[in-house]
């Protein structure tokens, strides 16, 4: 067993690094540039029951050490994802985490029911936290009761473990985390983007056509670390941490906060080779910090809390 191995429900990861959903398309886009089998896993773009066009443009705006996006869950819909996108990734030795979104409980259930049929989908990431769509998304992630109900509904039909992606756009994240754990979630992924806005001084209008968007990038890392730290002390299910990861030190900081694996988001756009670079650099930094293996580190953090 390698010192980078991490074992999570449904996921035996050869290393803990994976691109975050929405920041890696359906994976194939980056396969032109490196061997995707290097990755611990891939969290593919959100899938909804039917095709979604997404929001009008502009959909992105720069912020200090970050980015706002309002893509609006554009995707070709479940049928097309099952027919083309997921099979295209089968040639790579990498587990897929399918991000599932919807605008009603029924929508989520229908996608969750089917998407685990793809042989490479090893887990579902239930997206109850997208800030960029009017119906669904975040509306499910800001109420503990609804989050629990949706988790239970997804679990009742899913053929693979269900991880729930939490929103940071709440007064307190712990009750939501506890609710999804009580609803049977196998794990938590966190954090989704923070709701933000930028205005154009010349036009006096929002830069994004949607008005608001989701803030990501290194600017949000302290928020992610704080929330992972809080949630990891309140629940027993594992956490895949994300939010502003740029360096191997960020990866290890997420582990110290309580994560058991780490997803990289915005930085894929800045440096498309960021994931293989982090995987390559991680052992050396672990040596320097006296970390024998990641499983040992996870255990130590759990025992210390």
């Amino acid at each position: 067993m390698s010192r980078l191995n991490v074992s999570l429900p449904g996921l035996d990861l050869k290393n803990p690094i994976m691109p975050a959903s929405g920041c890696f398309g359906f994976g194939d886009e980056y396969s032109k540039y490196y061997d995707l089998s290097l990755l611990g896993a891939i969290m593919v773009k959100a899938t909804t029951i039917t095709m979604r066009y997404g929001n009008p443009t502009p959909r992105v705006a720069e912020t200090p050490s970050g980015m706002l996006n309002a893509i609006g869950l554009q995707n070709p819909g479940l049928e097309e994802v099952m027919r083309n996108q997921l099979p295209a990734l089968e040639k790579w030795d990498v587990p897929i985490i399918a991000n599932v979104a919807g605008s009603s409980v029924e929508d989520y259930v229908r996608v969750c029911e089917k998407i685990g049929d793809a042989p490479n989908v090893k887990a579902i990431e239930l997206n109850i936290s997208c800030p960029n769509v009017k119906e669904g998304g975040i509306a499910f992630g800001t109420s503990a009761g609804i989050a629990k109900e949706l988790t239970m509904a997804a679990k009742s039909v899913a053929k693979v473990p269900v991880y729930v992606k939490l929103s940071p756009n709440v007064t307190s994240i712990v009750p939501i985390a506890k609710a999804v754990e009580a609803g049977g979630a196998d794990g938590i992924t966190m954090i989704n983007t923070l709701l933000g806005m930028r205005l154009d001084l010349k036009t006096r209008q929002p830069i994004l056509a949607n008005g608001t968007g989701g803030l990501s990038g290194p600017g949000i890392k302290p928020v992610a670390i704080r929330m992972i730290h809080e949630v990891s002390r309140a629940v027993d299910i594992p956490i895949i941490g994300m939010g502003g990861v740029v360096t191997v030190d960020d990866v290890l900081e997420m582990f110290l906060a309580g994560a058991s694996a780490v997803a990289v988001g915005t930085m894929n756009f800045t440096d498309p080779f960021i994931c293989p670079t982090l995987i390559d650099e991680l052992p050396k930094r672990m040596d320097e910090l006296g970390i024998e293996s990641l499983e040992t580190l996870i255990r130590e953090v759990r025992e210390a809390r």
Partner: protein
Amino acid sequence: MLQEMMTVVNQKEIAPDIFEMTLSGELVKEMTKPGQFIHIRIPRSDLLMRRPISLAEIDHSNHTCKIIYRTDGEGTTVLSQLKQNDLLDVLGPLGNGFEIEMVAPGDVVYVIGGGIGIPPLYQLGKELFAKGATIYFLNGFASKEVVYYEEEFKKLGELFIATDDGSCSIKGHVGNLMEEIVLQTKTPKAVFACGPSGLLRSVEERFDNHPHVYLSMEERMACGIGACYACVCPSKKDPAKNKKVCDEGPIFKSGEVII
């Protein structure tokens, strides 16, 4: 697509706030089509988003390429401060580039550009010139003081300029210019355009049903390689779907997308 730390060979301001930068590196070998772009990481750690900038010139014999850009934000201002021998993180070449296979020696072609959309048309012009085409360049600028590459374009074909304020050549936008030139010349074999969406729309309308009209689109990008779905534009055939400017463009055939 490759990533390389390219070297700044030269940088100069060719008009107020318009800069020409020459870069050298192995990446130049991959640059094969006019209209492609490179995705530049701004050398300042808080500016995360790369800037897509089209290739103005590709020089395989010297392993160099040129970009021309306007400083209208923090990123391009940082870029304009780079000096000779500085290194720049570049991804590319990206995008599909202009199709010019159908152009034969002696064919009349229109190359139409506006403002900061003009740079990729220079490399295109060089390649069309090498094919023996008769080129009519129709370039629009805001005013005389921001006109650039006048002599360069004149070496490749006939250059017509329009300025918004009338301070140089014809007053008005390129659309007016286009009407005049069309009357003077033969029907073009192909039309290539790059510039603001108003310009692209007027080109598309003027050459409705022409089989070889190619339009270079611009949209805010994040990844530049088709993964983030930021830079989309609606497909004309099926408005419920859209096309990614970075990956499926930036050049689209007339009628392919809604501008």
